[in-house]
């Protein structure tokens, strides 16, 4: 199963990267969401796929028996939530850009680089 999950995780990351390279900002956004999901899946492998037992101490017991790695699960949970926050923030930015400039194409979102750009002709120097 490890090989399969590594394959699927890497594949999802690859698809996410492919979508990030699109010129459509919404596709890029969805690509980031896929990237995060794929990364979380790969992260899961770091805790080793083995036991299917959730890391919850059985009632009456004092310690955990053989179970999945709880530490990596805590890390992935944090990563999922942070990824969610960033996805939604990016969506908000794209929505604002759409409202302001009427375009979701990346090349139209260049007001930042156009601002204060040096003149094309070599005018004022020293």
């Amino acid at each position, binding site marked *: 199963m490890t090989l399969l999950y590594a394959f699927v995780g890497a594949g999802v990351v690859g698809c996410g990267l492919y979508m*990030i390279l699109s010129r459509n*900002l919404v596709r*890029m956004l969805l690509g*980031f969401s896929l*990237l*995060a999901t794929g*990364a979380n899946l*790969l*992260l899961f*492998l*770091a*805790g*080793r796929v083995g036991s299917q037992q959730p890391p919850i101490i059985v009632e009456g017991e004092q310690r955990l028996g053989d179970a999945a790695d709880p*530490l*990596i699960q805590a*890390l992935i949970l*944090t*990563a999922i939530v*942070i990824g969610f*926050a*960033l996805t939604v*923030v*990016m969506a908000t*930015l*794209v929505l*604002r*850009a759409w409202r*302001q*400039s009427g375009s979701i194409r990346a090349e139209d*979102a*260049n*007001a*930042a*680089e*156009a*601002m*204060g*750009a*040096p*003149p094309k002709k070599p005018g*004022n*120097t*020293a």
Partner: protein
Amino acid sequence: MTDALLLVAPVVIPFIGAAIAMLARKQATLAAATGLVASLLLAIASALLFARAMTSISTPLTLLGNWPQGIGLSLSATLPGVALVMVTALVALAAAIYAPVDIGPRRRRAGYDPMMLAMIGAVNGAFLTDDLFNLYVWFELALLCAIGLLTLDRRPAQIHGAIRYAAFAMLGATFILLGIGMIYGITATLNIHEAAAALARTPPNVASATAAALLFGGFALKAGLAPFHLWLPASYHVAPASVTAVFAGLLTKMGFYALLLIFAGLFGTASESPSAAQMAPLFGIIAAATMLVCVAGALAQTDMRRLLAYHVIAQVGYMMAGLAIATREGVAAAIFYMIHSIIVQSNLFLGAGLIRRASGSWDLTRTGGMVRHDPLFAALFAVPVLSLAGIPPLSGFWAKMIVIRESLDAGMAWIGGVALIAGLLTIVSMATFWSDACWKETPGQRIRRVPGTGLAAMALLSAATVLIGLFPQGLWTLAQQSAYMLEIGR
């Protein structure tokens, strides 16, 4: 003052300040007051922490949650972290004093204070933490706050700049996350010191090689090293001056600190048996490329903020050169440069903001006349300009000289040569910058008065630069100690 309180104060004080500023967001003056008070308290706490770290025999350490080391999270007042916390507090205080110049009630209500305070807290957390994943969390917090501060006015340029910034940063963060996960998978620990020891024991393998590359790429992106630097000139100049000043001073250096921690600390590139030796040759190439490309970029600009933004990255190139010189002195040179650069970069942006206030434009063709109309400002501004150019006796001279000297000592003279060429170009750039921004007189130009709070903030930072310049020995000793501690942490 117990260690436990002092070590968490640089993170907790800004966070509590952010919470209060958030609850008080409707009243702009209350939010502003919270920001200023929090920065003051932070400065005091950081100074106390620094003093404690310097005077105690063992490194002050707090085990959060009272769990054993390596099991729970811990914060330790090692060098260079605690020195960087001190410098961060200085910059934060200067920014808080300067803020009334360009942060008005509308920007305050949009959330300037909570986001700025949270970002400072995140930077401090990164400087003090011992845990890899904790480091990642602070980077993500800083990223989010930066996006928020970039888009304070909701202007199209800001939104577009933020999209570019966010796209790069999220990509870099994913690389870092994958790298950290892989390190955990290899070493079974997230504590930097334990992981370093475990890595030193494992023979070279594909996983750790990939992890080294991923972590390098991700943090190089955050630090702004070429060719991962393209986001910075695309976004830093859209924010108000006080925001860009803090970004320029702290965020890239946070990324570089992580590079130091990972490569000098975790992988031990400056030691005798580095775990990721294959990455070392790349450092020099990337450092040289960054220095040259970015100084060229600065020479091309006519907008003050864009010019200074390029210099920010060029300076990171110098720091990287220090790391590329794979000796302990090289790392120390990088740390010295980092501390000098934080103060100088922030000061430059604050000054640029004041020039804009005075002359009404960011464009260098329309500025000027500061020397005649406001000599005090010109004197204060001359300090960071000359320091960046590397003119003695200011901090920049020592920083550049140390980097070049260490490169010669380590037999990597070509890096020293590139640093010299970049330094020459920097002098040219700063000379034209000074002449355009302050010296030249345009007939019929109206120069407005520069606010006193802005001058006060600049005075604070300029004084620090002059102090380092006149007494570099203290900082150099500190830098050498830092390099040593980064290494023996393994």
